[in-house]
């Protein structure tokens, strides 16, 4: 016998539906607005100014008045930051999930939560202060630049990676550990060959979150080496341009409506670039997963 749903159930159900629909609606509106304002500004000259695109891409001809150096800057920045943060974050997450015990585990977890709560502008200030300290002590010529920004961004995204890895590994069924042990795997082999690959999906979500966060952050790079017209990044310690800073700069200081359109177009490009990096990460994840599950990668 079914009874008619009570009022509370109806309200909760309605609210759940509304919440579920609100998310895609907000994404749709945001994307629509960005497309509406940004698409008119998209052109080759938006990227390369007056420089021939092939020269810029292949022969690293300097680009003035274009987004190309900023795209290169953001891409280098994210790759560097991920190169620093992903191994460290995954290793720390595994340590917390599998090896740390008791008091040490609680203290370390608290530190990770604390790090997650630090505003990005503080991370930028930390980088800036670090350079000042280095200049006064061991390296008088040290200056802000790409590597310092990447380091600070890595610190910023580290807690996401640690927490997602830790939760993903801890959430795996105990039977997996038992199976590995019963087959003569050492604890290290259980972690490396069974738990880590099985937790890959969760870890991958953390990496996606970290990529997005590193690609969009403006506060950190503002204080650690980004400038408006540096050109393509030339070295690890050199100044560079970046898309979020470019957008911020244009939106704050535009003189003509065309410049504002350019800012919207740049925002669209940043979105596209981030999407591209997500796709790359997903592809890598799919390959790794297939290799683990079947022993082949194709």
């Amino acid at each position, binding site marked *: 016998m079914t009874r008619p749903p009570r009022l509370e159930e109806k309200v909760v159900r309605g609210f759940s539906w509304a919440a579920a629909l609100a998310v895609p609606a907000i994404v749709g509106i945001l994307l629509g607005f960005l497309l509406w304002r940004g698409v008119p500004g998209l052109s080759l000259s938006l990227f390369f100014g007056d420089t021939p695109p092939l020269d810029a891409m292949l022969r690293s001809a300097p680009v003035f008045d274009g987004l190309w150096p900023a795209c290169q800057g953001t891409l280098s920045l994210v790759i560097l930051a991920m190169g620093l943060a992903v191994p460290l974050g995954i290793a720390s997450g595994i340590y917390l999930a599998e090896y740390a015990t008791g008091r040490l585990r609680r203290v370390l977890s608290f530190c990770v939560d604390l790090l997650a709560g630090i505003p990005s502008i503080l991370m930028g200030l930390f980088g800036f202060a670090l350079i000042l300290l280095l200049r006064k002590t061991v390296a008088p010529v040290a200056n802000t630049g790409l590597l310092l920004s990447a380091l600070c961004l890595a610190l910023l995204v580290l807690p996401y990676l640690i927490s997602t890895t830790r939760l993903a590994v801890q959430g795996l069924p105990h039977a997996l550990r038992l*199976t590995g042990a*019963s087959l*003569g795997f050492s604890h290290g082999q259980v972690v490396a060959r069974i738990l880590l690959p099985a937790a890959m999906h969760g870890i991958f979500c953390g990496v996606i979150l970290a990529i997005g966060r590193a690609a969009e952050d403006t506060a950190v790079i503002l204080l650690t080496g980004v400038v408006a017209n540096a050109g393509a990044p030339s070295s690890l310690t050199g100044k560079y341009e970046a898309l979020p800073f470019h957008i911020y700069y244009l939106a704050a200081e535009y003189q003509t409506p065309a410049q504002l359109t350019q800012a919207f177009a740049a925002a669209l490009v940043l979105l596209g670039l981030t999407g591209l990096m997500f796709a790359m990460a997903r592809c890598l994840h799919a390959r790794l997963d297939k290799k683990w599950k079947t*022993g082949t990668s194709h």
Partner: protein
Amino acid sequence: MENGNKPLNSSVIRIEDLCVSFGGVPVIRHLDLEIGRGGPTFLLGRSGSGKTTLLRAINRLNECFPGSETRGRVALHVGGAWIEAYAPGTSLERLRRQAGMVFQSPNVLPLSIARNLVLPLKTTLSLPDDECELRMEAALREVHLWDEVEDRLAVPASTLSGGQQQRLCLARALALRPEILLLDEPTASLDFKAARQIEDLLAELKSRYTLVVVSHSLSQAHRLAERVLVLRDGGSIEALPENVFRDRDALLAVMDEIV
């Protein structure tokens, strides 16, 4: 006997004064036991009497559970020599390969059928690819699964039926070339037909491996066992005489009394 420690020639597992506790709560208390070659040796007892803990004490798998503490002596005769399971110098990994285990519910890894067998071989023995393939096929044939999975080795093992998964788990343990097989209620989660297949397999395997089976099924013990041990609340273990476990009614009567 030349000295007091020398075990019987035919025994393969020797347990002396074994105590196992979890978080300070004793589960096995001062148990002595010898298990002979071949078998199957069936371990019966009430739920919670410590059968599984006793089984896991043999390959030291209790250590994977928090708060476990084991005292006493467990010696296994494998590779032509006696090894002390709990001696500091004993390789835990080698011990667990030599005393393979099959669990109550099939615990296939979330991998393809082939990979379930090959991953342990590669990881623990670092075998080359062709040797892995050979061992995989041999193990799958040994459990009569090869003909069923030959053409779909790359599909996830979880797509197999429960009985097939359990046979895969058995094959996975066999591929590591153990001498002892510990089976923890291997048919408990299977339907009648699949359970019968596993039983038939055990009857075949007993000539090549030493089998120790924890079971709840009296009729299974009645059909298969060479020796039946009854564990009472972790404290004492008693071997049933053959005329008792060969006689279905006598076995039932004894178990009613004990359990």
